[in-house]
């Protein structure tokens, strides 16, 4: 989990709790610290507390308990307009009765910045998002992607050190979303601003962030860089939430040299890396990524445990093949293989043997 006493922490949550009705805690004892310049994504299913955290940071919700600090100062009692945090909203919230330039000029006007200065800053911000010639348009005359850029420019025009984004790409189509993902991270890193980004789209979280905090049930389940999160999930929630995953239930038989021997419910034995199981005899959920499953027995280490599998379905997806197998009673076991010239296309009904490296298979909590 995050270290509490980080001295370079720019944004800090310390033992923060939030309840709306006095009965249910939406955010339970949250500790989080974000260093200056980091792009942090809060990822989680709806209702996991991620948006509430963002709103508390922005000042639209007050924490029921705990302390939120910005650059070392507690901001619990500072109203939102004095926090100086830029924010991009899910529906962009561009003021419909103002032109684009007026929208951008608004935060500068309320800060009583001079007219010429204001115009220069607005122009610069619009050029930054490549919307230079749209200053005199109304928001309704722009496409979704263009509105998105303007919303971004508006959140950045008054040069905040921290920018919050609440699912800003949710309304865009896939291609535009991928383009904007790249642009947003680029912009954030170039300007050196700290970004807290909320999304429920795990691909977005993985491609954009320096670190991802996975939320569930009011807790941060894991906070790590994307590669670590994907490859080394701390628990079965993270493993299942991030990316595609094959899971099988079983009982730990033996733990030795950092490897656990697991007896699956069907009786078969496999090797796995113990992550949060410690004792022999505990229930466990073993997890293996579809692309780490090996179907070619010759590539496995000698003596590795293998499982019998029956091919149920073969799906051609272009760059990869996706094969559905029945393994140890699980009909939804997926294997992804690269579309290479030497790759075999398995036929439904075929009986094969599969295996994997023990370190790719993680024994997690049941």
């Amino acid at each position, binding site marked *: 989990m995050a270290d509490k006493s980080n001295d370079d922490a720019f944004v800090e949550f310390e033992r923060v709790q939030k309840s709306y009705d006095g009965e249910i805690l939406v955010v339970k004892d949250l500790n989080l610290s974000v260093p200056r310049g980091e792009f942090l994504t809060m990822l989680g299913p709806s209702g996991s507390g991620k948006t509430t955290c963002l709103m508390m940071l922005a000042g639209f919700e007050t924490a029921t308990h705990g302390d939120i600090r910005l650059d070392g100062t507690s901001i619990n009692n500072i109203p939102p307009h004095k926090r100086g945090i830029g*924010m991009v909203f899910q529906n962009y919230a561009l003021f419909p009765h103002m032109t684009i330039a007026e929208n951008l000029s608004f935060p500068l006007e309320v800060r009583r910045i001079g007219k010429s200065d204001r115009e220069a800053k607005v122009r610069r911000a619009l050029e930054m998002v490549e919307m230079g010639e749209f200053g005199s348009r109304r928001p309704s005359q722009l496409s979704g992607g263009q509105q998105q850029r303007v919303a971004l420019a508006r959140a950045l025009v008054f040069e905040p050190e921290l920018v919050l984004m609440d699912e800003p790409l949710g309304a865009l189509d896939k291609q535009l979303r991928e383009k904007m993902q790249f642009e947003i991270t680029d912009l954030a890193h170039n300007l050196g601003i700290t970004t807290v980004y909320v999304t429920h789209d795990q691909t977005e979280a993985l491609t954009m962030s320096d670190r991802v905090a996975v939320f569930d049930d009011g807790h941060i389940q894991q906070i790590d860089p994307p590669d670590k999160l994907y490859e080394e999930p701390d628990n079965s929630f993270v493993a299942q939430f991030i990316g595609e995953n094959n899971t099988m239930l079983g009982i730990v038989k033996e733990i030795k040299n950092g490897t656990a021997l697991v007896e699956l419910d069907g009786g078969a034995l496999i090797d796995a890396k113990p992550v949060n199981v410690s004792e022999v005899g505990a229930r466990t959920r073993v997890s293996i990524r579809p692309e780490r499953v090996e179907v070619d027995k010759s590539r496995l280490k000698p003596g590795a445990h293998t499982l019998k599998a029956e091919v149920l379905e073969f799906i051609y997806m272009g760059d990869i093949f996706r094969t559905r197998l029945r393994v140890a009673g699980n009909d939804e076991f997926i294997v992804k293989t690269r579309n290479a010239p030497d790759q075999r296309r398995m036929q439904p009904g075929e009986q094969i043997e599969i295996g994997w490296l023990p370190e790719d298979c993680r024994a997690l909590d049941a």
Partner: protein
Amino acid sequence: MSDTTKTAKVLAADGTPLKRSLNRALRLQKMRALMLIAPLLLFVLLTFIAPIADMLFRSVENEIVSTTLPGATQRLDTWDASLGEAPDEAVFEALYYDMFLAAEAKEHTKLGTRLNYEETGISSLFRSSGRKLDDIGEDRIDVLEDLSDVWKDAAFWFALMSGPEGAAKDNTLLRTQRQRLTNLTDDDFGGDIGFEPSAEISALLPRTAAEYTAFALFTAIEDRKAVAKQKPWEAVKVALTEDLRRADTISALAGYSGPGAAELKAAQTAAADMTPLNFRDSFVDIDKDWADVDNWQTIQTYSPRYTNGYFLNAVDMQKSPDGPEFRDEKERIYGLLFKRTLFMSLVITASCIVLAYPVAWILANLPMRTANLLMILVLLPFWTSLLVRTSAWKVMLQQQGVINDVLVWLGLVDDGARLIMINNQFGTIVAMTHILLPFMILPMYSVMQTIQPSYLRAAKSLGATNWTAFWRVYFPQSVPGIGAGSILVFILSIGYYITPEIVGGTTGTFISNRIAYHISSSLNWGLAAALGTILLAVVLLLYWAYDKIVGIDNVKLG
């Protein structure tokens, strides 16, 4: 555009032009749509558009003078009022025959009432003259009837006027007389009446034939009696003596050999000895007001079929020989009423905005359940009769009413100096603001509901204080709701009637109360129509101005 549209018509699969094909396909849909709205369209046309058009027409329509007194108004054209003398004998002669027929049809009093709006006293002049018309030429009729009993005989008159069997008939005369009666009474005077004037007698005795034909038409159609059995009117006999005294009649009579030739010749001899009949003096004998130039001037001014008199009246002006002029300061009321109506409507609209805005804001920002509950409270007045609500204000505001009692009890107001809050402008404004408030709240609410809370949050995150966020971001977006509510309330209040009637007293009444008075009490529908037309024009003008300034596209009702 693609090349196909330029070079050749696009064809459908069967070779017909695509446009025609499309139109045919859509025609059925359009027809069905039209059929669906047809009942409403007809209903609106019949019950809304048509009455309004009729009402507007009444504000300029003025046919009653020229249809009731066709002959007199025609001859009055050349009369010059500035000479200061009543019109000449020809006008009075025409007036006698016009009035006689009008009096028989009982139309002369209507004309009297109409002209009385313009010149007081004309109503009684017409009424009394109608009763005494029989006096004119009475002695002549006596002479005629003393000469021979046949002049008292209905059948003789009928035979005289019809001419011998197979005689040529004067259908033109019959037609013009039918038209004269139709114009006068608005009834249908078509159909066979068992009488046709003979062409010979109508050439010989034109006036007599005309009046007898009018008598015959009226008797057969209005009274449903046989013409041959009814004695003709006095006017017919007077017309006969007049006709017989004319020089050309005297010479033509020598060659006449039709029915009653002998009696006519005898009557002609007697008529020659009669003293000339002066219609003008006879009318002045009945009522000396007939010599009054002002009365004649009024008749002349209002003899055209259309008049701007009602409109002039509605803006406190009147017709005069030198063109339209303002009335005396003391007689001007409509300008004041229009100004008061506009002013009070503006005050009511403004107070509605002030009161409704916070309510609509709360409604729009509360959770759905609570908002719905409060909405019922807003709508509750709609379920109560308007009369009850207005009367309730009477109870509240009167000098012995609830509010005054409380103020006196609290010692804020002395018992002897209770506040006057009803039967004046204040009472009207309070009651109408209350009654029209829902019309302001509802459009405001529906507009505010569409303003997402994220706009306010965005404004605050950008550094705006609560007030700036409201004033620069929320308020401009709620303006369409204010606009819609204002138009609704203003237009409703400008034509409001019941509430000002009950609580308005004398200083709090609207122009609509005056319109109602003219419709139901003074029966001056023309003036009421003119006032209504002006009111409609003012509303349309304001609507147009509003569209120019605010833009009607910015008005949202939901």
